[in-house]
């Protein structure tokens, strides 16, 4: 098949901003907080989940401290709480209830450890004390056997924090994910092909679509 060129007008046409707005309004099913297509059953489910509350204030405060230890602000991006990770964790344990007992129990386990060592709950310990405790559960391969339940809890906490953070606007920018926007794929950039010592075959260059 011959080399093909397509004008970028097609692309612009594919993404008319006026239509986008109309589409958005329709997708909301009358609720401005919902910006994706929802069936009637889903709207009921989302409202019920939003109305429920799982974690106590103390638990939420502890989650905030822990999530910021896992994902602090650094030179590239903000922290877990900047990205509202605790709110995501509150939601996801309601939505995926298998998390509820391990999360609630894990937080309690952590508070008990802190109380036995420092006479305070985890969130009220000073930063040095918090880090000393976290260091004992953050490294699965070198953790002591008696800390294994804490390791399992921290692994879960790390997973949920990371997922909540890197699916937020702040996290996506941090990762430099460049997609989810109209594009014209013309293949891997030349410098990247060179870097990895790969190239397109003559057949591919001849057959594959190229946009100008």
């Amino acid at each position: 098949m011959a080399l093909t060129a397509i004008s970028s007008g097609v692309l612009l046409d594919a993404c008319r901003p006026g239509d986008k707005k109309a589409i958005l309004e329709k997708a909301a099913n009358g609720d401005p907080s919902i910006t994706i297509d929802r069936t009637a059953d889903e709207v009921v489910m989302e409202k019920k989940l939003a109305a429920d509350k799982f974690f106590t204030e103390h638990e939420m405060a502890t989650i905030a401290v822990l999530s910021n230890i896992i994902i602090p602000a650094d030179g590239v991006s903000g922290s877990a709480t900047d990205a509202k990770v605790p709110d995501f964790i509150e939601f996801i344990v309601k939505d995926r209830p298998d998390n509820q007992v391990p999360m609630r129990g894990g937080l309690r386990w952590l508070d008990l450890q802190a109380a036995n060592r420092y006479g305070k709950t985890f969130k009220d310990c000073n930063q040095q004390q918090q880090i000393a405790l976290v260091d004992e559960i953050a490294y699965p391969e070198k953790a002591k056997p008696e800390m294994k339940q804490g390791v399992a809890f921290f692994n879960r906490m790390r997973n949920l924090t990371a997922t909540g953070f890197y699916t937020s606007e702040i996290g996506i920018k941090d990762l430099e994910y460049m997609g989810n926007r109209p594009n014209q794929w013309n293949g891997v950039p030349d410098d990247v092909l060179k870097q990895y010592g790969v190239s397109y075959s003559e057949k591919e260059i001849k057959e594959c679509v190229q946009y100008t």
Partner: protein
Amino acid sequence: MGDFQIKVQPKVYDAVIVGSGAGGGMAAYILANAGLKVALLEAGPMYDPAKNVTQMKWPWESPRRGASTKYRGFGDFDAAYGSWQLEGEPYTKQAGTEWDWYRARMVGGRTNHWGRISLRFGPKDFKRKSIDGLGEDWPIGYEDIKPFYDRIDKLIGIFGTNEGLENDPDGIFLPPPRPRLHELMIKKGAHSAGVPVIPSRLSILTQPINKQRGTCFHCNQCNRGCQVYADFSSSSVLVKPAIETGNVDLFINAMAREVLTNKEGLASGVSYVSKDDLQEYQVKGRTVILAASTCETSRLMLNSKSPRHQNGLGNSSNVVGKYLHDSTGASMSGMLPQLLGRKRYNEDGVGGAHIYSPWWLDNKKLDFPRGYHIEYWGGMGMPAYGFGFGMENRNGKYLVNGKKKEAGGYGASLKEDYRYFYGTSVGLAGRGEAIPLESNYCEIDPNEVDKYGIPVLKFNVKWSDNEIRQAKHMKETFREIMHEMGAVITSGDDGPENNYGLEAPGKIIHEAGTARMGNDPKKSALNKWNQAHDCKNLFVMDGAAFVSQADKNITWTILALAMRASEHIISEMKMRNL
């Protein structure tokens, strides 16, 4: 409940179609364009990808960041309303057997979700019994269906390349996209392992084909439905233009109960319950076309008993429900260490892989019949629920920017790890052909009904050694490709303990065979025109009509057969045979 009245729709149609997916959508499109009056019944709500939008949304627009729910089994952004279980619509399984049944209830059915992999069956795929003595030959050959494949390529649009392969026929293709970086690496590795790799064949428009549909803008989200109709869904590409002819009445939320027959045993219409008002309705027609999905269609046939059809409609052969089979499936995931810390750019591309491997071996030298093709994935995708899970299993194993780290961790160092590992994953999945067996079937459960009072299906399906040996071969191939491309296997390195990771039947969602066509009315439910041997005005136009399903995804063949059968209906009506 007070009055219990069955309401009869006043209009008598030329055709009543049950189901608006690939088969039903194509039937509606062909018949309506020929001027016939069509009633199209769909068990779910209206759906139009231009209006019901999840495409181009960001993960944070889903509070669960795209995780699945009971209402969307393939995730919160997936277009399809459905899952492995539907509330109030159960199915049962014989103890010791396996079947997973994915159903989508919506206009367009499961074509709103699928991978757009659009493969023609080859000449051998219609004559397998003649080749290896297993299963049954089709009553038609490639030459019968080729003209319809050609027309569907042009009508719907597909990209790919003509490779001159004997059993993976050439088509009328738009140009494919160039491979992504990890796909170039897969290609190299696969070639070293002796496995061919060619451009994918996907029903996605890389160039415009008409004014009604836009062109792909490379967001890699076909499973979310396309606002500009640049991919094939029955909802946007067939049902919508069919309705625009003015010849189709679409009945949504209409759950078919049974096919009605008259004294002569001919089909006279369909009875259904409306999910909106829970009232009972009947819609009458000169012909009835079942395209409710393989298992749902056979359920309808088996539930449509009458004095003339005591065994269920069109089932004097007793084959309805039997020969149920799905594609085999097994997969392996890994990571490419050479991609650690890679440069960022937008590599979303089209929905799905830009390359695949068609079946390449000769069964005479193998210990299993039939073949499989390989699908691939990987790269810098949009993060979603599950992103970053299990970092403690990875970041202790590789130097991160030259530093050795303790597995797990937290803080700025951990953030560095997520960036460093992003976009390094790679995966392979085999999709193969199973042998249709009489002993693998679905039947009506004598003890259970759904919430509408419709008797439900009970499944009885087991893989045979043939499929298990095929999965074993897949895993051996995958290991070799992974090794040759320098990847590290992270999951799916299975052995005999779990049948080499062979997925439960049903899981690949390519089920077929439960009302197969054939020349012998004693051994088949349909003739070669998808027409019931026992009831000349009943047609089956979904995967149920298949004799066998090849190592190809079945949608393109459902479409071709539905186009062919619909035109047969038109000519039979003209000749007053229907």
